[in-house]
């Protein structure tokens, strides 16, 4: 079992300082790709990879799906951003985790292709059978939002 928790990728933190990522709605395109339990994804993951991704077909396309960004906001002294839930409809998918990455980063100050943002560990294999496979993001508040700067 190669997934061992949720991680904010270390290179993502550095890239924030280079202004690589724009989370405003309609700005950069963030994608979510699904992976099998054989994938090795953690805080050291620097970019999107096709290795051990869920196979193309049966409702899943290699590279994953584009997420709908919710523009960053603040709650108290915490800045946060969120994504809309993502559903693969009419699919037969088994996935253990996911990688959110930026497919249109700002490369003015740093050369990166599909830089990674967050590794998500589903905790166990999740399976849809000719049904829906939905990743549900947590409530967008100062305590739960997927990306928060406190």
């Amino acid at each position, binding site marked *: 079992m190669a997934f061992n*928790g*949720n*991680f*904010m990728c270390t290179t993502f*933190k550095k890239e*924030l300082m280079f202004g690589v990522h724009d989370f405003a709605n309609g700005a950069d395109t963030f994608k979510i790709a699904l992976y099998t339990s054989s994938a090795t994804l953690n805080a050291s993951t620097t970019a999107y990879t096709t290795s051990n991704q869920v196979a193309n077909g049966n409702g899943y396309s290699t590279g994953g799906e584009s997420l709908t960004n919710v523009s960053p906001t603040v709650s108290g002294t915490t800045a946060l951003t969120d994504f809309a*839930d993502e559903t693969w*409809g009419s699919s037969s*998918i088994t*996935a253990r985790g*996911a990688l959110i990455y930026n497919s249109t980063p700002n490369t003015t100050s740093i050369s990166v292709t599909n830089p990674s943002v*967050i590794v*998500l560990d*589903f*905790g166990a294999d*999740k*399976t*849809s*059978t*000719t*049904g*829906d*496979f*939905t*990743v*549900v*993001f*947590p*409530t*967008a*508040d100062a*305590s*739960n939002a*997927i*990306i*928060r*700067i*406190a």
Partner: protein
Amino acid sequence: MSVPSLNLDITPTFKVDVKTTENRGFTPEEVAERCADKVISISDTANPIIRDQARAFKTHLIKVLSFYMKEAIKSDRTTVYNALSNAGHKDLAELIRRM
């Protein structure tokens, strides 16, 4: 002098939820519950009076959302029915109408 630092890590309790179905899509009630979870977050440690009111409101919200989702589905099926019917697929249109 201490320098304020930014905290950007995922907390150990963070959990992303995955919901799946077998041989069907999500029901309006299931989607409504997801929607309500996005709108209302209730802490277990909140004042019991406020917490109970919030939970009651959330239950009501799920019922209202479910009803209007069913209305939207019905209305969309009418649109699909007409599209299929106008394209000459009367049998298929009738199948959709009876769903």
